[in-house]
């Protein structure tokens, strides 16, 4: 059994077999792991349950706050704002942002999350998915399929580029998550495998070059809010692909470009807490306040 080694191979196989990408990924997982379909399915259902719990926890009551106090409570702020105002970018968009921020606030507070593909980018996919649940009236089965599609395409990204901020910057984390979410959103909305691939390509292109610059090395600022743009970017790319927009650069070449851009980033912008926002006077002051000056 060989794993899919490119986005194009997945699209071709889906077209040839007339199956959705999610189905191909479920079959691949059964073959690779030797586990039966039910086991594989239930494992993904469990991941979905954890994601749902984190989204819920982050927006209940006054919200959750990290131990440092740097992040927290903003998912609730967005929720209240949505209740009382007509939002500028539309209520569905802001509900995706709310879900994304809620998840990452739980993560920053050392709560339980499902890494998708990483913990720092764990808000992006749920941001998209739980908004779509309401908007498209999704059943649990469709939501689980969303995760298989996202994960299967994410494997290609991870193997050909990487998903660690320390090696590829935030583009590899939130960028990858947005690309996975965009492609999965297309499938769930009834788009073609080719359109999923287009959405993935556009989502990666839109966040290419994004640096990983956590203040004090904490997965808080700017990570929590970066997931808001991850979710928004996923939805925009998915809508554009469904509209028939085409990325002139194929998905696999976008992935390869992301890899090269990541390798070209200096260490200060790859999860060292040195450059970018971490290097600003305020970023340095926060670091000194939390850890003292001897770092």
């Amino acid at each position, binding site marked *: *059994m060989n*794993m899919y*080694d490119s986005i194009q191979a997945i699209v071709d196989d889906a077209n040839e077999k007339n199956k959705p990408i999610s189905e191909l*990924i479920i079959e*691949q*997982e059964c073959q*690779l*792991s*030797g586990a039966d379909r039910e086991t594989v399915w239930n*494992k*993904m259902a*469990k*991941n979905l349950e*954890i994601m749902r719990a984190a989204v819920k926890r982050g927006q209940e009551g006054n919200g959750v706050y990290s131990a440092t106090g740097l992040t927290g409570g903003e998912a609730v702020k967005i929720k209240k704002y949505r209740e009382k105002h007509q939002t500028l970018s539309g209520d569905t968009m802001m509900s995706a942002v709310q879900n994304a921020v809620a998840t990452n606030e*739980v*993560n*920053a507070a*050392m*709560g*339980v*999350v*499902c*890494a*998708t*593909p*990483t*913990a*720092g980018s*764990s808000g992006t996919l749920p941001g998209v998915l739980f908004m779509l649940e309401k908007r498209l009236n999704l059943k649990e089965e469709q939501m689980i399929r969303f*995760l298989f599609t*996202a*994960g*299967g395409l*994410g*494997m290609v990204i*991870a*193997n050909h580029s*990487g*998903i*660690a*901020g*320390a*090696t*590829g910057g935030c583009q590899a*984390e939130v960028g990858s998550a947005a690309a*996975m979410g965009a492609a999965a959103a297309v499938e769930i909305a009834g788009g073609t495998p080719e359109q999923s691939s287009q959405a993935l390509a556009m989502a990666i292109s839109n966040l290419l070059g994004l640096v990983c610059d*956590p203040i*004090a*090395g*904490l*997965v*808080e600022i700017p990570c929590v809010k970066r997931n808001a743009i991850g979710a928004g970017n996923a939805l925009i790319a998915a809508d554009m692909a469904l509209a028939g927009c085409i990325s002139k650069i194929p998905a696999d070449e976008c992935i390869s470009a992301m890899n090269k851009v990541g390798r070209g980033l200096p*260490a200060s912008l*790859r*999860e*060292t*807490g*040195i450059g970018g926002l971490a290097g600003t006077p305020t970023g340095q002051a926060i670091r000194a306040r*939390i*850890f003292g000056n001897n770092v």
Partner: protein
Amino acid sequence: MGAKYRSVFDIIGPIMIGPSSSHTAGAVAIGRVAHKLFGEPMTKVTVHYYESFAKTHRGHGTDYAIAAGILGMAPDDQRVPQAPQIARRNGIDLRYVEEEEPSPIHHPNTAVLCISNKHKKILVAGCSIGGGAIEIRKLVVEGVKIFPAGPLPIVLYVDHGKKHPNAVELTAEVEKLAPFYRKQSMRGEECDIYEYDIKHYMNKKTIDKLEADFDNLICL
């Protein structure tokens, strides 16, 4: 070569305690490899951090994650944040060192664990490659240096007294149960060590069978 990520659950998952999949969940995984490889109570653990791990381990909870791993906890165990205190309460002399030089195994998220008790000493050099996945790029067991390809699973067999030249039987069984893409043999003074880099993830049944059939065999 095996791909680094071989399951959809490497990407959607793991379920974990925040905040970082590479610096927390991955660090737990590196600790768990050391826990399994050592296989008995330890009295001293020194963790050497390099590059991104050295710069951000405090912010990312890497210290408690590694400690949780060496105690054998899972990444979603609620006790993960208290692990260093639990380790010290269990009599483990636990230390963390921030190294200035580049990673000896060429990855920004590197932790090198030196673990010992009165009569045993090992070294585990692991890196966290993202999303909770790890590679083990160097091991020292019984004074013998081993350089696996990196991605798990890794099967390790220590032949004390060199009683099984070339581990012919074992190699055949590994090939049958868990195909590998590379095999290495290392000659120590008192033992031979065989290391297999396995193509796909192994299920529990396969691991149990291999570990039951061969003494001193460990599936990492």
